[in-house]
């Protein structure tokens, strides 16, 4: 469904992502893990077009989308949620989801100008808020609701786009233990309903529980790939997380 | 020879712009404010300088008085206008700043009259020096000297003194600087003071150069100052200096070659727009 080939980008000398190849198959739930600064967020941004790669290409459902603007990819059903939540702060939580639910109407500015019917978008947005358990905050301005709500609102906004491929960047960060477990269940359920998901997470317990395949990124490159249990048992993966290789270099 | 002369005239203008734009860049780097009202500080410096020069006959006294008056006004504007609205969206400070500029410009007109004043004795203006086929008057030479000396002093301040180091730390991260005991408020006042002294001195120099001090003399130069700091890459000091000099030279040649098409101000902003369309982050600004 998605294929990244030889993706690289450098920020002033730092090679944040260096020659990554990856494939995501239709219907899977893949976990993308790696220590802080491994390049996970940057890789997602390259795949979704927030950043343009220095080299490499991205194909989505057989189409080369490397040059395609973000909003077009989103319209195709290829959607990213940001690691740092980006709500429209002066809109209510409901309005935040409604704008996303209306992408068919807002596709062309001139069409949007003559459309005033908000009912269909409102109903869909309300249903999504209910599903994510944040319906009680619907009419509060986004700037005044707590982070746990915003995280879920962001996922509701992404779901409103009817994604076929959803990339979630640390959706569980900042949630407490039970919230995280419940949210992870929801992610698994969305996947079961047919949405392909790539999940970036530091909460290894939850990723290994719900993901069927893991990709480990380290220093901008793919270090390991496979079934969670096997991957987590590998020494190089453990070392990457513990920062042992840096120490080894220092001792050498 | 003609080209060399154009180049020199452009460089002299570049020096004037640099004195204005350095202050704007300091303020922007620290507070993200487009400080249009710096024009007022510039004009006040010019008026004070002119009055003192005409009373005492001493240009040295005129510069000192202008620097002090300007140096007092800038921090005052910060205290009364910007400080209370720092947490508001950026256009708020910009509009307030434009308000200060418009009101003060009218204030100068009411106090000093609309037609402008001239120096009683302006020997720098009337004395020219010749080098080969080139002729520059003393004001132009002093502008170049003043700009170079003041900017060097600033560079020494920023790199060699405790206050300078504290200032740079505050620019890059106010919270961390504060936790190391730097007074952020002090640094802000100091920046406005430095910016204003430079602007005040530049005001007197431009007054001497045109032998005229008028209420609106600061506005266009401060609009161009804003163009320059944007060109340089907002908040970037070397970029600002480079842009100042470039703009001076582009204007100088442009007024000769594009005279039929557009005026001097339009040339400056045309240059700005063209550069930004090619490099949206400015000449030395960072991408991403």
């Amino acid at each position, binding site marked *: 469904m998605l294929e990244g080939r030889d993706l690289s980008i450098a920020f002033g000398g730092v090679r944040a992502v260096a020659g990554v190849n990856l494939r995501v198959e239709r219907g899977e739930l893949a976990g993308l893990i790696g220590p802080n600064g491994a390049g996970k967020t940057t890789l997602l941004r390259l795949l*979704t077009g927030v950043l343009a790669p220095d080299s490499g290409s991205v194909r989505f459902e057989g189409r080369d989308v490397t040059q395609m*603007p973000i*909003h077009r990819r*989103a*319209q195709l059903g290829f959607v990213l949620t940001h690691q740092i939540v*980006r*709500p*429209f702060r*002066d*809109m209510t939580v409901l*309005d935040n989801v*409604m*704008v*996303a639910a*209306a*992408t068919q109407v*807002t596709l*062309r*500015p001139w069409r*949007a*100008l*003559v*459309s*005033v019917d*908000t009912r269909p978008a409102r109903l869909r947005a309300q249903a999504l808020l209910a599903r994510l358990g944040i319906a009680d905050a619907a009419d509060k301005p986004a700037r005044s609701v707590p982070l746990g709500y915003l995280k879920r609102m962001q996922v509701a906004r*992404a779901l409103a786009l009817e994604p076929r491929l959803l990339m979630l960047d640390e959706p569980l960060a900042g949630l407490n233990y039970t919230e995280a477990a419940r949210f992870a269940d929801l992610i698994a359920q969305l996947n079961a309903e047919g949405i392909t998901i790539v999940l970036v997470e530091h909460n290894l317990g939850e990723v290994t529980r719900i993901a069927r395949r893991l990709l480990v990124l380290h220093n901008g490159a793919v270090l390991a790939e496979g079934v969670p249990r096997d991957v987590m048992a590998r020494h190089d993966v453990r070392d990457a997380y513990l920062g042992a290789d840096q120490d080894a270099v220092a001792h050498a | 020879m003609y080209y060399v002369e154009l180049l020199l005239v452009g460089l002299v203008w570049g020096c004037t712009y640099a004195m204005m734009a350095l202050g704007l860049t300091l303020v922007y780097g620290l507070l993200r404010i*487009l400080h249009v009202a710096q024009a007022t500080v510039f004009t006040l410096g010019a008026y004070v300088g002119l009055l003192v020069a005409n009373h005492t006959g001493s240009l040295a006294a005129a510069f000192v008085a202008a620097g002090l008056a300007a140096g007092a006004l800038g921090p005052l504007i910060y205290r009364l206008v910007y400080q209370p609205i720092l947490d508001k*969206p*950026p*256009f*708020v400070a*910009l509009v*307030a700043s*434009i*308000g*200060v500029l*418009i*009101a*003060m*410009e*009218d*204030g100068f007109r009411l106090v000093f009259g609309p037609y402008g004043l001239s120096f009683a004795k302006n020997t720098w203006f009337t004395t020219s020096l010749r080098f080969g086929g080139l002729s520059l008057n003393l004001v132009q030479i002093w502008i170049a000297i003043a700009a170079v000396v003041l900017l060097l002093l600033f560079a020494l301040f920023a790199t060699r003194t405790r206050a300078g180091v504290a200032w740079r730390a505050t620019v890059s991260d106010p919270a961390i600087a504060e936790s190391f005991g730097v007074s952020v408020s002090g640094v802000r006042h100091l920046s406005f003071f430095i910016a204003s002294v430079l602007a005040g001195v530049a005001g007197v120099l431009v007054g001497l150069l045109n032998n005229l001090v008028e209420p609106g003399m600061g506005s266009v130069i401060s*609009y161009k100052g*804003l*163009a320059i700091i*944007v060109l340089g890459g907002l908040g970037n000091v070397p970029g600002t200096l480079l842009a100042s000099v470039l703009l001076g030279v582009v204007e100088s040649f442009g007024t000769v070659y594009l005279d039929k*098409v*557009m005026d*001097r*101000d*339009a*040339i*400056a*902003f*045309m240059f*700005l*727009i063209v550069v*930004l*369309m090619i490099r*949206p982050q400015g000449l030395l600004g960072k991408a991403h």
Partner: protein
Amino acid sequence: MDYYLSVATFAALNVILALGLNLISGFCGQVSLGHAAFYGLGAYGAALCSVAGLPMGLSVAVGMMVAGAFGILTGFAALRVREDFLAIVTMGVGFLFLGAVRKQAWLGAEMGIAKIPSPLDKWGYAMLAIGGAVALLLLSLHVRRSWMGRAFGAVAQDEDAARSIGIDVSGYKIAAFFIGTAAAGLAGGIYAHMTQLIVPDAFNFVQSVTILAMVVVGGIGSTLGVVAGAVLLTLMPEMFRFINDYKLLVYGGLLLAVMRFSPEGLAGLVHRWTGRRLA
């Protein structure tokens, strides 16, 4: 009577200008410090056509299209630069317009264009301007309610987030610039025919700031607030004749005071006192 009519006409023209800018800056969040340039483009476009013998209606329409076309170009600039950069670029657009017109012999250079045909009487212009203002008021209220208004809101608040939910940010910015600058062109066309004489200085930076002042005094983003701001700032110097000599002093002071004490303008005050948000 004539005097009141001309004040009413100017108030209506200012409403058109301010609502146009509000669409760009208030609704879509794109700061513009050069709105007077589009007022000028509309005026010059219409004046040239009229002097060449076209009927007034057609001339005004051409003026609008000229302004709107340059508005689209400026919109493209807004795709490259943002926020403070955009503020300075639009200021530059204003200076570029002025500096170019001043040097063009075929535009009358500093002397401007005189003897523009004027087919209507004072009542006619007043009705035309007020009609235009009402049309723009209704359009603004409609845009706010429509999906275009909601998409503008998303673009204004967070461009990147708007993109990631599939909104064509570039398209909306260009649409905002087109509508807002074409409105300024309309005001310019009416102005040119009414005064029969246009000079470059009528469209300078101070004029841009004056339009901006109407928007912020009224309350950026609020249609009714902006209308009130435009009317108030037009009437103020007329009502207080004694301030005429200190007009700019009062004007600047007012801008400063509003930003300092109620940055959300009149609309913000209404909200604070009654708890209701103005449309």
